[in-house]
């Protein structure tokens, strides 16, 4: 018995039970009438593969949490949930495009989530907001420009904007600090693949890391 102790003297060390730090990812998805048909089917399929890709790495699955807010009308389809427990919904296209309202609700949902994590002593990575839209906003979105700019300045979140089909790029250009990108057709799958790869890189980063995002030529978002 003495022998055994000498062989592995440190084996008894009990590790502190810490929850993993979280990287919240808020998806703002345009589900207005113009998305009906093939676009919404492609988006639903992409969400399914997004979940699978997040699950492929155990640390990413534990650290990335996803929320899904659709517009219009504005609806929080999935509140923040770890990738493990994320069940991709089947979205339906209907209604108009209240982008301003969606951004307003989205920022508030994210703010509350951060506060909750902090109150529970859980560490955070900088949250991601990912906007995908195909249409022209039908409400007042100008008022959100300063909120997004302020959020970026204070490092409250990273905001990415993506235009599908015929979306107005100039709207997204005014909203986003980062150059908005245009998705060719409805190729959602490679986009979500890039998103899950990026979130994996972030959720594995340690203090002092500059996180290099995976190369995805059409977007040109290199690092954060």
């Amino acid at each position: 018995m003495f022998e055994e102790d000498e062989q592995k003297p440190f084996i008894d060390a009990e590790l502190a039970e810490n929850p993993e730090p979280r990287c919240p990812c808020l998806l703002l998805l345009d589900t207005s009438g113009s998305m009906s048909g093939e676009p919404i089917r492609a988006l639903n399929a992409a969400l399914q593969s997004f979940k699978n890709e997040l699950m492929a790495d155990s640390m990413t699955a534990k650290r990335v949490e996803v929320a899904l807010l659709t517009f219009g009308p504005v609806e929080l389809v999935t509140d923040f949930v770890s990738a493990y427990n994320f069940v991709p919904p089947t979205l339906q296209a209907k209604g108009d495009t209240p982008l301003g309202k969606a951004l307003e609700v989205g920022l508030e949902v994210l703010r509350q989530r951060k506060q909750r994590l902090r109150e529970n002593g859980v560490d955070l990575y900088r949250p991601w907001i990912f906007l995908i839209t195909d249409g022209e906003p039908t409400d007042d979105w100008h008022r959100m420009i300063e909120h997004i700019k302020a959020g970026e300045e204070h490092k409250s979140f990273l905001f990415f904007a993506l235009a599908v089909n015929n979306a107005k790029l100039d709207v997204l250009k005014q909203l986003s600090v980062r150059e908005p990108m245009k998705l060719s057709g409805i190729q959602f799958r490679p986009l979500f693949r890039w998103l899950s790869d990026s979130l994996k890189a972030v959720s594995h980063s340690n203090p002092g890391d500059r996180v290099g995002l995976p190369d995805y030529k059409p977007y040109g978002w290199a690092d954060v």
Partner: protein
Amino acid sequence: MHSSQWKIVSASIAGTSHVAKNSECQDSFVWRTTECKDEVLVVIVSDGAGSAKRAKVGADTTCATMMQEIQTVVETDLGIHKITRKHVVEWLNLLRTQFQILAETEKLETGDFACTLLAAIIQGEKGIFLQIGDGGMVYTATEAPDEFHLVIEPQQGEYANTTNFVTDLTAADILRFEVLEKRIDEIAIFTDGLQRIALDYQTNTAHAPFFRPMLAPLRSEKVSPNLSEKLHDFLDSPKINERTDDDKTLILASRR
């Protein structure tokens, strides 16, 4: 070489994420005991930032320079009693100059040498602790041999992957300088790779069940000669690696 009252083991291991990327361990450490009327123990640990191009050089330089400066004072004053915060700020300025020279030579920025600093300077009934950035130092004192105390809370930025570095322009301001007027018998110094394992997250206090068995082998009269090797194996075990993929360094010292 004098015979020291301190028994010391150490291990420093590249994190699994760095191994996967084929990059080296960017932690660095150095320790030394100096014979005085009361023996002086100095332990310095530095964690090179993952994003910095010359993180390992930064950590090595930080350890070497700080050790040299501390030794100069110790040898001049025959002890640590005169060391003040002002000294440390001077050493940090010196370190900064070194990084500026290195950066100019290599056409880099001083930030490319970014790294943290943890230092414990112990003599008799006194301990001086320096910290910039994350990681931690945990001790027990003669007065309460089973109480494990974290000296300084890890400095963390707003998000999980941010902290402070010796290369920051504000390094002198963010430096934590703590003096403990008690007889410290045991000290454990670790980089942030072990932080989530060694500290309770909500209270930011030392996790005693982690440190107690760690320090136990050092309490015996005769310390096993290959204890550092065993510490290395433990820190590289699946039990640890499933919880952290960062570089990890742990120095344990005991005079109990």
